[in-house]
């Protein structure tokens, strides 16, 4: 159920914008603050949620801390797709059970 956390984290539009921004290149909190036009504490809070969902990770580069997508969360999202197709195909197979012989 790791994907549950990922999807919950991404249910917020601001966090989706933030996550989407990071796919282009790693960003610092300052850059993200200017991009999103919200306060720095708010950006840090959003990053924290994304980090806990393992969608985002950070690394130090000189004196700056840069944020980028974390493959762990991506694996979890892939798990969601896996589960999605399982559910969809189960519904498909089940539809034949309802058929009259």
């Amino acid at each position, binding site marked *: 159920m790791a994907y549950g956390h990922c999807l919950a984290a*991404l249910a917020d539009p601001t966090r989706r914008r933030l996550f989407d921004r990071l*796919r282009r290149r790693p960003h610092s909190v300052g850059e993200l603050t200017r991009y999103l036009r919200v306060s720095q504490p708010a950006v840090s809070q959003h990053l924290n949620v994304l980090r806990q969902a393992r969608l985002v990770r950070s690394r130090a580069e000189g004196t700056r801390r840069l944020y980028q997508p974390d493959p762990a969360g991506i694996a979890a999202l892939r798990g969601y797709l896996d589960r999605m197709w399982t559910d969809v195909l189960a519904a*498909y197979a089940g539809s034949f059970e309802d058929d009259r012989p």
Partner: protein
Amino acid sequence: MTDARPIAPLRKVVTVKATPDRAFRRFTEEIGRWWPLASHSVGEADAETVVMEGRVGGRIVERIRGGREAVWGTVTAWDPPRRVAFTWHPGDDPARAQDIEVSFTPDGDRTRVALEHRGFERLGKAGPRMRRAYPIGWAYVLALYAERGGLFVIAVRALTAALMAIARRRRRAA
């Protein structure tokens, strides 16, 4: 480096109590009879049905209450009763489509249905074009999901965005 994690295709197999002909027809023309729209659709509670137009170039389109439509993909291979393939971008921009292929193989008096969801790697290659296309899709999705945030759409979008980032980094590293 964890970025070396393979972006492998997703593969699923199910065996159904039907001939290939019937299994194919049920998956395609009759998709609206069984697709779990309530949980797997763009319109969710407002989704009315989904239709697959049975020809190459045909659309897979969800009809939503109020006369709206959401295109999920376009048929790229139509070979009844053996194989159907289509692009896949529910709630997303077609430029960011992935590929789905479904094959139907006789197995005694049943049919083995194998589904492959692939094209994740491809996402990293069309970078500039996709970047231009992206804001359109994003605005569309935000307008629809500002409040609800449907998982079906969010998961596909988030996965696509993340896989693109990885593919691009890998390409740079190569």
